């Protein structure tokens, strides 16, 4: 088990490989091809992401265009003609007469956009502050780590609610309706950066005392260059693992915030908003309004989580 990837690599022909070729030959990719769980979850995630990106081409209707909706189509069961309009929908319609299938595709776009942007924001902020704290130490370190404490003091949902409240207050009234998405990204991202900063700071503390960094410093390299060129590449794999799991968490967090009334607006619903709205119809028999969005969210979060899990095991040399 331990030696297999290296053994496989050494058996490959030593021709000058292209970038792609090198990636395909890497330990990681080899392990990937050997793991059915990783393959299936990666394919699932890719399928979901792709279909949400291509939503305008796949979706039969555009649920975000209110003028195109017919309220009388509301609550049509899946694949059953509506009693008033006679129209039929693959996965039925919701309370506003929107096609559930289209709404899921568009909603997933929003969920993924929020999730990816929030994690990206957290990663960039976390790496930046973590590097600063770890490399320079001293009062910079103390300051950043105490800010991290303030952040950790509030659980993520509380942070998000606070930011949402403040942002709602300071956004000019005419921009409020577009604001929600950006605030969600900021809120989820801000509540998430600390773990990246801590990991990066820890790794930087270890790396900066190694000989190669000392050497780089001796030949007069600027700190920014040392951090970017030498330290950063060495800490990317733990960051990648945390980021993947954070993505799933961010998508769920958005749903939870929606339940607390601070999510995406109902006219441009995310998966979370769809589930929040759908849970109101659990007892009334309109199961499809909740069931399909919930399944989509489950599939999305599950595949990303499993990918993250696998990645952690694969990148952790101690577990091989």
């Amino acid at each position, binding site marked *: 088990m331990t030696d297999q990837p290296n053994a496989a690599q050494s058996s490959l022909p030593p021709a000058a490989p292209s970038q792609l070729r090198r990636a395909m030959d890497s330990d990681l990719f080899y392990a990937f091809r050997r793991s059915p769980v990783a393959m299936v979850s990666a394919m699932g995630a890719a399928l979901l992401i792709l279909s949400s990106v291509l939503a305008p081409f796949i979706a039969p209707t555009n649920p975000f265009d209110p003028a195109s909706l017919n309220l009388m189509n509301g609550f049509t069961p899946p694949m059953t003609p509506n009693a008033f309009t006679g129209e039929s929908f693959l996965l039925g319609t919701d309370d506003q007469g929107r096609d559930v299938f289209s709404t899921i595709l568009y909603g997933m776009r929003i969920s993924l956009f929020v999730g990816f942007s929030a994690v990206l924001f957290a990663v960039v902020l976390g790496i930046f502050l973590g590097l600063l704290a770890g490399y320079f*130490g001293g009062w910079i370190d103390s300051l950043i780590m105490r800010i991290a404490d*303030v952040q950790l003091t509030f*659980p993520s949902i509380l942070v998000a609610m*606070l930011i949402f*409240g403040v942002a709602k207050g300071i956004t000019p009234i005419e921009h409020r309706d577009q604001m929600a998405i950006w605030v969600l990204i900021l809120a989820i991202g801000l509540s998430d950066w600390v773990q990246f900063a801590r990991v990066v700071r820890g790794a930087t503390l270890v790396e900066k005392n190694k000989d190669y960094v000392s050497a780089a410093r001796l030949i007069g390299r600027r700190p920014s260059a040392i951090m970017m060129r030498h330290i950063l590449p060495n800490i990317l794999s733990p960051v990648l693992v945390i980021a993947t799991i954070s993505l799933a968490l961010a998508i769920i967090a958005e749903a939870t915030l929606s339940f607390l009334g601070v999510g995406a607006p109902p006219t441009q619903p995310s998966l979370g908003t769809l589930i929040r709205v759908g849970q109101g119809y659990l007892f009334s028999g309109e199961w499809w309004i909740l069931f399909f969005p919930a399944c989509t969210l489950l599939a999305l979060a599950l595949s990303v989580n499993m990918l993250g899990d696998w990645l952690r095991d694969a990148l952790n040399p*101690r577990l091989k």
Partner: protein
Amino acid sequence: MGTESFKMLHFIFKRVLQSLLVLLVTGAIAFSMFTFVGDPVENMLGQERTMEDVERLRSQLGLDKSVPVQYFRFLTEAVQGNFGVSYRQGRQVSVILMERAPATLELAALSALFAVALGIVLGVFTAIRRDGFAANFIMSTSLIGVSLPTFLIGILLIYLFSVTLGWLPSFGRGDVVHIGSWTTGFLTESGLKALILPSITLGLYQMTLIMRLVRSEMLEVLRQDYIRFARARGLSDRVINFRHALKNTMVPVITVIGLQLGAIIAFAIITETVFQWPGLGLLFINAIQFVDIPIMAAYLMMISVMFVVINLFVDILYAFIDPRLRTAAK
């Protein structure tokens, strides 16, 4: 030796000071937010109120003052143990918090117990039977638990166990017994029944987390030389797994449990809303809805103190265990 303990004291002193600063900043942030939650006055006066009523009430509550002034007033009062009076209930905030705390603490305790007990058992199991079908099955299904939002899990549990099967109550604490100022649901049948669904909902996420942590720590330890050596000596699997391996995984697990306790209390907000659990989380959500600033402020301060204290303890504990961190932290 003398300088060692002096250094230690210095470190603790510094961390406590920093923690106080953290609390001050958190409070300030929380307070500046209240301006944006809405206007409490609107909820407190009926539809027949006049503009004079609004102005009178605003100055009476001190809402006409600037945010820093309001914050300073809150702090000076809070230091003396006075958190003011709830706008919504018209009662002392400290009294309300004391009334609601038992519900949340009992729920959190049971959830934590559920998460820790089941988390460790399943974690050990999945580590020992690493490639077995059951272990893989548990690992995969546990991911479902963290891939759905908590509120949905709660509502699905209600649908299944209350509405469809009629086994367990869907809301509230059932009958509670008063012991002094404490109320407990542990002593009545309906109280115990009422605890089941909310505890599972609240503890599920932490359970998954602990299970995965125990599993990976166990896997790690089982590969260590001394375990291999023990095995070579012919010790039974059970002795190896539990006496040696599990014991060594406990340090990181306990740390995580400590940190997660605070998270459990914070996430109780959602569980309590779904199950109408009369605890602090529900109180907080109500307070937001009614812009009940004194309750919001007191709750946020309480949560902050709790997290800061836990963080402080963990840091100091680490410093005792690993003296190098003391210098690194400087």
